């Protein structure tokens, strides 16, 4: 049976199999059936079935038969696939192949640009430029030869492509990677609906935060629902219509980070949608939470490159978390498999598409099974997209989409020979297709001399052969699948015959050996022979010359085929990564969360914050997270005993005004954004949680920033370091919302503000208008709950009117404070807390009548115009007038020293020490409506406690233990151990990266990238950030 020369079969970019009916033919009709039989192959039909010595029969772009007993019709072109593997080609479910995504111009930020309040998209579309569900990939799709080629080379045959831009991104389209007409490669024009939290190319200011993106998407779900009734007030809204039309498709959400994945899933839960979530690559760090979503994931293999950390200064700027991620990223896919999470793999996010198969192998080396990898590239995506009837396995009736490889696809050094898409062949790398190993009879004729000589050629591999005549000569072969070249010296070499590199053997002097092997040729002085020819099945024919220029003809015939050898050079599996997953993934994270304990703190000074005052030589017993006993000589079996002799125990510090532990803080693009929620974007991995625990903080009220008059909904958290975002939340608390007045909301520092309001006069009217609208909305909802558009922004305001949500209001000067209270009076609600409130001392009496709490700084002033009259005696005056006064941080650094800030109230204004301490413990608990559970040391309350080394108001005091719910989340002792661990682990990874640089060859490492921490702030004042910290303020984001 003759081997077929595959390269003659390939068709370049034109399909005769599936010409399109409507298109006229320029020339002569050339319809073909494209019937091929691939025989003798190892066919991997699907994850379960692998057939040996089998045949695949295709016709007209489809599979006609697969099996070991396939009858081959005469019209079939035979392709012998002996020793070759055939797989269904892969499916990439997350691609933008053939789509040109709109790009924002890269570059710096214009801090002074005015806000863009409305969409720049012309037409009857959604109000927001990032909502574009009307986008259909199939309308934009155009074949991209280059990209198709690069995807085929790594085994893909089908992709789901979509426009990766915006929050609601529209529909994706399934196309094959064939490159004939667009019309013919499209398998499904609307196959999926896509989302993200990234506004992409939208230039509109809103949303300017993660929580804003979430709120926008939630509101869009509600609006789309409402639009179904065709409300006349909305007119025609193409975007909402499309949003509804797309709802029945598979819904795919770009997560890109473990926390974003969870945020996305929660949006889905709210609206009854189970998204397929595109992962980011770090999900292994929270795999349990990821599994709990029950979503199917699309996992990229974008493993980070090692960094160049030879320079210790550069190394210092790279965090342990980033280095650990470098080591552990290849375990991500295995983590999904181990956790039994359904997932697909994608080639998206790769720096270099060519890396894909290598990275799959790397994932396999790190625990992913080959079967799962295969499924994740075939059946899983096909099933998700409801196209398993067409692609994803090799079965009769499916598309002829398959790849032919030199061996098991996930092994090292495997060649993809060709990738067939819809029955058409696309060659990838066929140089190794024809097996040339074996023994040949070689005859070389010299026409000039009329002589002929015979050799036996033993072809060892595609580059080397032994040419055996009188002597055994080393030959060099090159074979590209078409043309073969063979050269050999006529004298034996002393060096070993086989040179793995395949390089030319050195041309040895012919001296002592006499060149006898070539004596019969035209001239015995010839040193070397060069032959070139074509391979025709088992016979080679060609032409050649020797070193003297004599013309030769030659023939070689296979006499004995090489016995098939399996590749036994399986590399040793890569060393298992050593880095541990910690919670959080920071250096200061723990491999296991600290546990709740029964604890007795013995013989200490207890600042109760209750009528008992300060108790000397007292014990406090903590059980099951609560304070159960306060007294002398307490004991409890099995309880951990902490000696408090000479030390002071207080309730944990509660920071009424904090901006830590969130992915975004300000949604400042509009003046009213009550729809956004800090809770939607908590970041439990913020190192400042741990640092603040070390300063005795146990609860923090995470506020929206002060960019706008009515900001977002706040979240009270407990500093449970290592838990996930839900674990941080303070359970069962009255929800709050942040308001703000004055300079920030009128955007004083912006040179050309165009957002209403620009004065305090306008600020008051923003409030007036918002609540007027809220009241009307409430009435409308009551009257016509179905016909009224549900408005998340107004929902929150209605809650305020109904005393179900409470306000903490950023405020400075007396005029605005009074004006705000009058709005409250008008609409029947009160401003629960005024925060900052640096002129509170001027209107403390009015605030008392209104019923507000005050939460202020101890001694800040003169950082902007509206704090020129701020005084350090503010807290003392307000307290003496009878307000409940808190001292807050609003600063990630100062929050570590809030006890000292409270001490300043003793210094400035002579408040008693006990009352001063309450300003950072019990008083904020009261202001936040949680004083029944925290804020003092009282039987039955939560065991949120701090054991101080010294008087708690003293600058010399340090927290030795910070306890939340009876769990020791910080201890000085353990902290010191942790530092050593960090140093050891950092050093290990730095050495490993340096080794990678030295052995990995050029391009193995990228320049060290400092692990910037970003501090989000209210945009109110300067911050005392660290060297590698970026302070992101409101305008930076709004105007970008």
């Amino acid at each position, binding site marked *: 049976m003759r081997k077929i020369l595959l390269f003659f079969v390939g068709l370049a970019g034109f399909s005769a199999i599936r010409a399109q009916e409507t298109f006229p033919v320029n020339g002569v009709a050339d319809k073909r059936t494209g019937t091929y039989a691939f025989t003798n192959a190892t066919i991997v039909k699907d994850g379960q079935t692998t057939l040996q010595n089998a045949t695949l029969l295709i016709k007209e772009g489809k599979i006609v038969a697969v099996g070991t007993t396939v009858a081959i019709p005469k019209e079939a072109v035979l392709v012998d696939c002996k020793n070759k593997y055939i797989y269904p080609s892969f499916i990439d479910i997350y691609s933008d192949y053939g789509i040109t995504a709109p*790009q*924002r111009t*890269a570059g710096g930020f214009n801090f002074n640009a005015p806000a863009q309040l409305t969409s720049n998209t012309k037409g009857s579309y959604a109000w927001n430029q990032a909502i574009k569900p009307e986008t259909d990939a199939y309308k934009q799709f155009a074949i991209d030869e280059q990209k198709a080629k690069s995807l085929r080379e790594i085994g893909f045959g089908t992709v789901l492509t979509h426009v990766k831009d915006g929050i609601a991104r529209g529909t994706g389209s399934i196309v094959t990677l064939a490159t004939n007409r667009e019309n013919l490669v499209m398998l499904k024009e609307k196959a999926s609906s896509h989302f*993200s*939290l*990234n*506004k*992409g190319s939208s230039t509109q200011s809103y949303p300017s*935060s993660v929580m804003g993106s979430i709120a926008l998407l939630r509101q869009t779900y509600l609006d789309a629902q409402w639009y179904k009734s065709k409300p006349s007030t909305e007119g025609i809204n193409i975007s909402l219509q499309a949003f509804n039309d797309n709802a029945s498709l598979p819904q795919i959400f770009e997560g890109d980070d473990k926390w*974003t994945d969870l945020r996305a899933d929660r949006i889905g839960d709210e609206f009854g949608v189970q998204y397929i979530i595109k992962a980011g690559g770090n999900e292994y760090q929270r795999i349990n939470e990821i599994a709990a979503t029950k979503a199917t994931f699309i996992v990229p293999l974008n493993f980070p490159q090692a960094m160049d950390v030879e320079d210790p*200064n550069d190394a210092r*700027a790279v*965090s*342990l*978390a980033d280095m650990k991620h470098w080591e552990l990223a290849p375990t991500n896919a295995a983590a999904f498999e181990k956790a039994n999470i359904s997932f697909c793999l994608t080639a998206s996010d790769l720096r270099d598409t060519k890396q894909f198969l290598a990275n799959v192998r790397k994932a396999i080396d790190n625990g992913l099974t080959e079967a799962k990898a295969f499924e994740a590239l075939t059946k899983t995506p096909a099933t998700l997209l409801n196209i398993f009837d067409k692609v994803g396995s090799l079965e009769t009736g499916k598309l002829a989409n398959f790849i032919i490889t030199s061996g098991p696809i996930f092994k090292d050094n495997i060649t993809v020979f060709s990738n067939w898409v819809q029955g058409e062949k696309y060659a990838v790398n066929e140089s190794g297709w024809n097996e040339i190993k074996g023994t040949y009879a070689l005859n070389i004729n010299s026409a000039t001399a009329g002589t002929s000589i015979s050799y036996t050629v033993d072809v060892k591999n595609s580059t080397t052969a032994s040419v055996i005549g009188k002597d055994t000569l080393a030959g060099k072969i090159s074979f590209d699948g078409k043309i073969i070249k063979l050269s050999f010296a006529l004298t034996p070499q002393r060096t070993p015959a086989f040179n793995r590199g395949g390089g030319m053997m050195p041309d040895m002097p012919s001296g002592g050996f006499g060149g006898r092997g070539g004596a019969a040729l035209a001239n015995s002085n010839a040193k070397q022979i060069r032959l070139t020819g074509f391979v025709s099945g088992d016979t080679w024919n060609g032409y050649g010359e020797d070193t003297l220029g004599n013309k030769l003809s030659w023939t070689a015939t296979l006499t004995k085929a090489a016995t098939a050898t399996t590749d036994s050079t399986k590399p040793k599996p890569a060393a298992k990564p050593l880095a541990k997953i910690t919670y959080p993934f*920071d*250096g200061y994270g723990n491999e296991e969360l600290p546990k709740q304990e029964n604890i007795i703190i013995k013989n200490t000074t207890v600042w109760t914050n209750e009528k008992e005052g300060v108790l000397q030589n007292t014990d406090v017993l903590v059980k099951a997270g609560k304070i159960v006993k306060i007294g002398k000589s307490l004991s409890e079996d099995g309880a951990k005993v902490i000696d408090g002799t000479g030390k002071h125990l207080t309730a944990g510090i509660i920071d009424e005004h904090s901006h830590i532990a969130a*992915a975004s803080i300000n949604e400042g693009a509009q003046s009213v954004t009550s729809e956004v929620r800090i809770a939607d974007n908590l970041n439990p991995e913020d190192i400042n949680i741990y*640092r603040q625990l070390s300063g005795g903080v146990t609860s923090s009220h995470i506020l929206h920033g002060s960019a706008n008059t009515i900001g977002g909904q706040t979240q009270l958290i407990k500093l449970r370091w290592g838990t996930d975002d839900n674990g941080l939340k303070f359970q069962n608390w009255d929800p709050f919302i942040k308001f703000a007045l004055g*300079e920030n909301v009128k955007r*004083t520092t912006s040179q050309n503000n165009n957002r209403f309001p620009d004065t305090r006069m306008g600020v008051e009217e923003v409030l007036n208008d918002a609540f007027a609208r809220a009241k009307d909305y409430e009435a409308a909802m009551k009257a016509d709950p179905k016909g009224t558009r549900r408005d998340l922004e107004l929902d929150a305001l209605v809650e305020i009117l109904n005393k179900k949500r409470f306000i903490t209001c950023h405020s400075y000067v007396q005029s605005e404070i009074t004006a705000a209270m009058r709005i409250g009076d008008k609409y029947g609600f009160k401003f629960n807390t005024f925060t900052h409130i640096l002129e509170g*001392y001027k209107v*403390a*009496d009015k605030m008392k009548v209104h019923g507000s709490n005050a939460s202020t700084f101890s*001694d*800040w*002033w*003169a*950082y*902007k115009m509206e704090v*020129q009259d701020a*005084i*350090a*005696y503010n807290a003392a*005056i307000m307290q003496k*007038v009878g307000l409940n006064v808190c001292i807050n941080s609003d600063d990630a*650094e100062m929050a570590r020293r809030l006890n*000292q800030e409270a*001490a300043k109230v003793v*210094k400035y204004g002579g408040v008693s*020490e006990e009352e001063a301490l309450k300003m950072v413990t019990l008083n904020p608990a009261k202001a936040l409506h949680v004083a029944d559970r925290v804020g003092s040391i009282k039987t039955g309350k939560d065991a949120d406690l701090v054991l101080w080394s010294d008087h708690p108001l003293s*600058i010399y*005091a*340090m927290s030795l233990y910070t306890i939340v719910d009876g769990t020791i989340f910080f201890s000085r002792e353990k902290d010191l151990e942790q530092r050593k661990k960090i140093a050891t682990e*950092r050093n290990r990874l730095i050495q490993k990266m340096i080794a990678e640089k030295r052995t990995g060859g050029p391009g193995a490492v990228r320049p060290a990238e*400092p*692990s*910037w921490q*970003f501090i989000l702030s209210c945009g109110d*004042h*300067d911050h*005392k950030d*660290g*060297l*590698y*910290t*970026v*302070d992101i303020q409101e305008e930076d*984001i709004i105007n*970008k």
Partner: protein
Amino acid sequence: MKKTILNIAALLMLSSAIKAQETVYPAKEYKGKLFIKNGTVHVGNGTVLEKTTIAVENGKIVAVGSSITIPSGDVKVIDATGKNVYPGLILPSTDLGLREIANGVRGSNDFQELGDYNTNIRSVVAYNTDSKITGTLRANGILLASITPEGGVISGSSSVVQLDAWNWEDAAYKYDNAIHLNIPSFLQRFGRRGGGGIPPAILAQLGLGIRGGNAEDPNKVAVEKMEEIKSFFRQAKAYLQEPVHKNVNLKFEAVKALFDKKQKLFAHADQVKQILAAIDLAKEFGFDLTIIGGVESWQIADVLKANNVSVILNQEHELPAMEDDDIDQPYKTPAALQKAGVLFALNDNDANSRSRNLSFNAGTAVAYGLNKEQALQAITLNSAKILGIDDKTGSLEVGKDANIVVAEGDILDMKSSNVEHALIQGREVSLDNKQKQLYERYKYKYGIN
């Protein structure tokens, strides 16, 4: 024979009178004798003297001892029994008097001039003695400050002022003590401090954008910039060697004192590489070098010591530089420098409390490794040495100016400290300020104490 005894009651009486800050007068010159009697004297050089009296005459300290007899006659006596007596605290680098309102009010700002090589810019000529902030500093024992211009590559020269004066000439304590050089960053800076926006990777995390291209290697940029700075000084040096000039170059003239070692080079640098670059520059020109900032100075404390480089730690109450750093690193940096024998001073650069917490920065350093007298020295004598005024002030020693603070409680700990008296050059200065006056005003409104 009337002793003028200023006590708390008198002070309270003084401040309870409702009046505007404009009636807080600089104290008149006092040439006579004054005794601070029987206090716990913290000399500023590490020594503590119990039950000790300080004698002042003609604005200078003339005696310090436990057996000083207070003469009868026209002398002032401050009874410091049970109180702590400290040298006047020194704020070693500040925008006081140049920047009244930190943000948003351009008209109140005179701290940053246009241009790159502003060697000839002098902060003292714009120093506003009537700043409302000054009074809040005096009330916390800060009696001297070095006023620092900002911006550019070389910002200009600072001058030391005393904080109780009618005008800047009156305030000047030492003119042009140092030239301020900003060492270029060896990190690609983002955000507020260095401009340039938000790192693309962070924007991506925020869901706000696309990843940008790679910027130029910041190390290379910084080294080139340093070379440019050196080139400036090389040209200045050559210029200064020539006695006569056809065209006077004010920028070169302004660095003469630097080459003559009559003036110091204050290099603003936080990163290790910045500090090393500053040392390299100072070596080439033989400048007397102080590092201001010094966030990472603890990493190369030995190098600083070996090169005789002093440090002003700008902001001890700061977050650790790196996520993985010891959580208390900024707090314990002073102890690291102390241990290595580096001459260092503490500063309070806080833009929100406006520098009034200088002594509490020192207090934090005590909690994290210094002893109290070392910490005090870091805000008194060390600062004086670094600013080049230790011949006149910084410690309570005979011959020095009577810049003295008498406090109830421990001045390093806000829990207990209250400054009761302050003397600048022997003049008892007012501790009243705008904030106290507003306090009185509203106590009056509400009828509270």
